[in-house]
């Protein structure tokens, strides 16, 4: 890894299923499968790659939950770990080692440069995953407002969008049931212009919302290893969670 990559995250967009990715996928299956009771549904909706996954976001565990729940191929590339420097911190170093992500730096990344980066993923028949809300939400039944990226990326590349809902990762504990639900794909090849993009954004939002549960979960009194909830969340997310409760 070059010095620049250490600072800004990997630039090479590996969509190949490398040995390193196999190790990551298998390790995550073991870890996530051991800690949680993960169920997946709707995988039959996946079209042939390239396509874009758009998901809600509740927890730092979410990317790992999705990777562990999904098949080994096609490999998923993630858009948007918000980091300015990948050479610091254990979590950043691990992410940098395994790759498969397009980092987002609030100071340097523009919508144009981001679209250019994600088009490279689609050009080699990759799958891009994005947390459309841009940050962690704390309610299972609601979505935060979407950032502009989710619809813009898919529309720019004309790839279908597969809505995804992660249900149950707001509060985690040992062997908690977590469901990863995928919905039918949304076609985007005819989307042109700001109005059509806004309509696409609304359709994606509606599709993800339709996969969410109707009621907030009732938490049991005893939640073994409940520290798992905030284990991978950033300090600002932990503070926001505490403020929201």
């Amino acid at each position, binding site marked *: 890894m070059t010095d620049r990559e250490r600072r800004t995250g990997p630039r090479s967009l590996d969509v190949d299923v490398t040995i390193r990715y196999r190790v990551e996928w298998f390790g995550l299956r073991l870890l996530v499968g051991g800690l949680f009771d993960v169920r997946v549904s709707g995988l039959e909706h996946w079209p042939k790659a390239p396509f874009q996954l758009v998901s809600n976001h509740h927890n730092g565990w979410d990317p790992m939950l999705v990777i562990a729940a999904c098949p080994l191929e096609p490999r998923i590339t993630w858009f948007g770990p918000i980091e300015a420097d990948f050479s610091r911190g254990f979590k950043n170093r691990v992410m940098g080692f395994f790759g498969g992500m397009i980092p987002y730096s609030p100071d340097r990344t523009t919508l144009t440069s981001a679209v250019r980066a994600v088009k490279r993923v689609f050009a080699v028949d990759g799958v891009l995953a994005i947390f459309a809300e841009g940050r962690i939400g704390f309610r299972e039944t609601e979505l935060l407002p979407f950032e502009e990226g989710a619809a813009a990326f898919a529309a720019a590349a004309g790839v279908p969008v597969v809505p995804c809902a992660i249900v149950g990762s707001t509060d985690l504990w*040992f*062997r908690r049931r977590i469901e990863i639900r995928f919905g039918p794909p949304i076609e985007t090849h005819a989307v042109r212009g700001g109005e059509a993009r806004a309509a696409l954004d609304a359709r994606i939002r509606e599709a993800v919302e339709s996969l969410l549960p109707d009621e907030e979960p009732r938490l049991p*009194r*005893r*939640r*073994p*290893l*409940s*520290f798992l909830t905030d*284990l991978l969340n950033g300090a600002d997310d932990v503070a926001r969670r505490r403020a929201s409760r």
Partner: protein
Amino acid sequence: MLPLIWTLFAVLTVGGFLMIAAYWLDIQDRPDLSARARIGWSAGILLFPLTIPAYAFAGGPGWPRFLRLASIVPAVAMALFLGFVFGVFG
């Protein structure tokens, strides 16, 4: 036989460290514990082969059976370590 025991020891040592971390973090995250109990269980980590099973079975964390069984892993790893130190296996 010795390679098998070494392998078992290595696996249990990793598992033991994970259980120590799980024990510590679980205590810090339990809202139902009083400050005194939290300090007591936290200090008990110095005697982890005894306190982790004691916590799992009698400390009221609500751990499922798998974790309760895993709570004896640090003690078994430590027993194997002492076995190596005192030449029991060789």
